[in-house]
């Protein structure tokens, strides 16, 4: 990575910090619920702050590393914070903090299990972000996979069990493929798995066929998490089944872990030149386009709100894949930035859906007539994020779409732009009706001249639920306007992309 990485224990601490809240939960007496859970929140907040402390160094272009354990040379458990990983870590720890706060107000039974596994998954996925080579990434990725199972099954209804089992089956199969991919990488990469700045594989140690196989193995392995179309089956079941903060994190972070894996593979394992050489990026791009369009179409047909959001997540994650597959400066920029943008928007949307579900118990959009009058703040936040999703300026959604469009032109393939516009239209088609139903319909409006209900801020829920929603909704706009603020995605991503597309 950039320059010589400094030794630093901060990544290790960052990974171990969530375990503190685990200890708190297991050791503290079970009566003091409030205290324990707020301590959990403090734990995740502390993690976020710790990650934040690394920001100046990263902005100066340093990177930090620490070796945990080593099997043989080239096969070692090493944490390295480079810009790309740091970018992911910052985003996820922030979102995680908010989600933890939210779930204190949301989760009402089996808190211990839920929060313990929240903490575990946070530490594992931080490990993914900080991992210094593919070996480490794979280890933390698998741990994250199995750790997030209890989050999905939490409700323990029949749907939840079914969804969680489906998730597990998909993930185990993917894990096997990925395992093969990593071993093959070790074998064909000449006995090392490191993340090279311009990729660590090359055609002069391995044959073209081998590398192509390897790439597709990686794509299949990570594609399950990243919900590329033929492999997306678990997503629409898991999201509605999981409790809302969990589903926010699912589509905000855990899907991104797959995408992040693909980013690592493309940028640091294969490298741009090799990708161009092998021509495999075309397949990636085609799959991504198919996914974008089809997912939006599926989303149209869903009446269950969270299910519709889930399908839209499938589509949106493929934006990232598409942006990477363009192999152009702006494309990469847009894709990488969409990683955060989509996390914020979709996180907020899921949290809003959670509030509605919690307060009114309504799952289906058709039941939500006039919901905007009962919960104005929630629904306003929802509408902001929905508009951002569609890509209306000034919002983060607009930024990433714009950059992706530029990338498409740079790549000389305007067809991508058509795809983007189609999906924008489709997402308008499936988001606007929700807003319409929420604000311009109300109970009994079919009778002529029935009075529209008054806005009532009284029955908005407590701060623990509202703060995350509001913060996210505001960020959606702010990040869309002041793009270059240090710490916001652009400042980091531009570094990464600048290095890769020297």
């Amino acid at each position, binding site marked *: 990575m950039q320059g010589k990485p400094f030794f630093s224990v901060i990544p290790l601490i960052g990974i171990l910090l969530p375990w503190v809240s685990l200890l708190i939960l297991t050791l503290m007496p079970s009566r003091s619920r409030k205290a324990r859970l707020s301590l959990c929140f403090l734990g995740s907040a502390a993690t976020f702050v710790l990650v934040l402390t690394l920001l100046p160094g990263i902005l100066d272009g340093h990177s930090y590393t620490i070796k*945990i*354990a*080593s*099997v*043989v040379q080239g096969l*070692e*458990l090493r944490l390295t914070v480079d810009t790309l990983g740091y970018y992911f870590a910052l985003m996820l720890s922030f979102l995680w903090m908010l989600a933890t706060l939210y779930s204190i107000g949301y989760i009402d039974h089996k808190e211990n299990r839920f929060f313990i596994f929240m903490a575990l998954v946070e530490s594992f996925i931080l490990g993914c972000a900080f991992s210094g080579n593919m070996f480490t990434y*794979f*280890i933390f990725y*698998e*741990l994250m996979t*199995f750790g997030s199972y*209890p989050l999905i*099954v939490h409700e*323990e209804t029949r749907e939840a*069990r079914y969804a969680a*089992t489906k998730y*597990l089956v998909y993930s*185990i*199969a993917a*894990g*096997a*493929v990925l*395992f*093969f991919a990593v*071993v*093959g990488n*070790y*074998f064909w990469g000449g006995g090392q798995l490191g993340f090279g700045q311009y990729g660590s594989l090359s055609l002069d140690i391995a044959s073209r066929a081998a590398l192509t196989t390897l790439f597709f193995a990686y794509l299949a392995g990570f594609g399950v998490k990243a919900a590329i179309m033929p492999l997306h089956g678990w997503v629409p079941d898991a999201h509605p089944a999981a409790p809302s903060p969990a589903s926010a994190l699912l589509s905000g972070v855990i899907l991104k872990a797959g995408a992040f894996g693909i980013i690592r593979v493309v940028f640091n394992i294969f490298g741009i030149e090799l990708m161009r050489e092998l021509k495999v990026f075309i397949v990636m791009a085609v799959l991504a386009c198919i996914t974008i369009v089809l997912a939006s179409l599926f989303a149209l047909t869903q009446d269950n709100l969270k299910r519709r959001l889930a399908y839209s997540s499938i589509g949106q994650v493929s934006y990232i894949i598409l942006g990477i597959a363009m192999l152009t400066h702006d494309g990469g920029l847009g894709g990488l930035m969409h990683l955060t943008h989509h996390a914020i928007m979709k996180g907020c949307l899921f949290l809003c859906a959670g509030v509605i579900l919690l307060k009114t118990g309504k799952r289906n959009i058709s039941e939500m007539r006039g919901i905007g009058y009962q919960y104005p703040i929630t629904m306003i936040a929802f509408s902001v994020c929905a508009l951002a999703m569609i890509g209306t300026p000034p919002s983060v959604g607009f930024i990433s779409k714009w950059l992706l469009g530029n990338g498409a032109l740079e790549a000389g393939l305007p067809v991508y732009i058509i795809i983007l516009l189609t999906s924008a239209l489709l997402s308008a088609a499936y988001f606007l009706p929700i807003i319409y139903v929420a604000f311009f319909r109300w109970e009994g409006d079919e009778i002529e001249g029935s009075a529209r209900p008054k806005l009532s801020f009284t029955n908005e829920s407590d701060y623990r639920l509202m703060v995350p929603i509001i913060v996210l909704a505001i960020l959606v706009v702010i990040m869309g306007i002041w793009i270059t603020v240090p710490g916001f995605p652009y400042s980091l991503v531009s570094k990464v992309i600048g290095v890769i597309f020297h």
Partner: protein
Amino acid sequence: MAIFMITLPLLGAVLVSIVGYLKPHWLPWGALVPLLASGVLGCMLIGRIPSDGYISYHLGNWSVPLGIELRVDYLALFLMLLICALGLLALIFSRRYIVKEVSAGRMTAYYVLILLLSGGLMGFVASGDIFNLFVFMEIVALSSYGLVAISANSRAVRAALRYLLMGAPASIIILLGIALLYMATGSLNMAELAGRIGQSGYREILIASFVLFVVGFGVKAALFPLHLWLPDAHSIAPSPVSALLSGLVVEVSIFGILRIAYSVFTPHVGNLTSATSNALAVLAAAGVIFGGVMALLQKDLKLMLAYSTISHVGYIFLGLTAFNAEGLTGAMYHMLDHGLAKACMFLCAGSFIYIKGFRRIEDLKGAWRQMPWTCFAFGLAAFSLVGIPPTAGFISKWYLILGNVKAGNWVYVVVLLLGSLLGAFYCFRILYYMFFQPGKEGAWTPRPADVPPSMLIPIWILAVATVFFGLFSGLVIPSLLKAAGLLI
């Protein structure tokens, strides 16, 4: 020093039998001493082995062709330490547990047999003389027949008799193989044999003897079509015994094949063995799949574990047949991993039997409310068995697959991955029952009421060891790689 590692448990067995006659209640403690001693000796031995070879110890001061030679390389020492550790833990576990399954009049025999078993295993592993190998294999075999039958109810005796009726012909076959080998070369020492096989004129006889060895050891190691005895024997024996049987005895029998295939019929004589080794690989692959599927179908916990042993035997064989250092390392490390994990799971099954007396998988629903510690240890061991990072199973699978990739036989790579999928399914089914299923009313006490610590500690040592050897496999792997590289 290695010699004392072997002979102390044998001597200890005799003394323990006397102790059992005079002071029966000293038995559990007295039995620990010899194994502890040999374990300490083994640890002292670690540094002394030259990393590019093996300690050879000439018994009775006779030069090689005359006397018997012990050869302790890192692979052997590795297994000997594993044997000491598992034996000790099983003994500690037995102190409280065994009264459930063994009557007072058989207690002495139980402890003595476990000591003899461990001593025999260590002698087997360390031996550098092919006939001495047979002798210690017989000690192992006889003591394991006895241990399977020790609870002396009709099921156990039937299982033991079936085991014996398959095991004894196997030993005879091996004896015949030794005869053919001696006939063709006129020597019994492994190193010398390896030299003489090269220029021996009797190819057919050599091939025949190799086949006989493979068949004989294959029965003892439950290679796929010869596994018929294993499910009954391993599931009906008392739990610590099943832990030792499927954690050690099977592995060590595979190690016997390893010795024969690599130290006696060296791969330089490869064309001599390649055909049989291909057949071996096919059988092993079949075993992986068969064991996995059968394990998925079982209703009885210990029976399921037994079938998964068959599947994992296939894994280890696939490592051997890769014929390169990585595969061999993977096989050895998988012996370690499977030994630890499977022993831990059998002990957990034992503690379920100890608390509730049942062994059906359905009954485990919601078990973790009452027995959290046992259930979590079981979960760790299951993770290691499936090969989820960062457990030892992951490292071993890594090297197994790497070896097969290097050898370029892709079919077996696919088989290994399929096997781990199956493993994941049959392990996670149990974890799902334990943790995410509500138990039947009154099946479990709401408050934790787990097994006594003297049973929990061995379980947890094993469970933690699986994770430890996954994270810090760097301590073992390099020396294993080097030792394996020497054999190739």
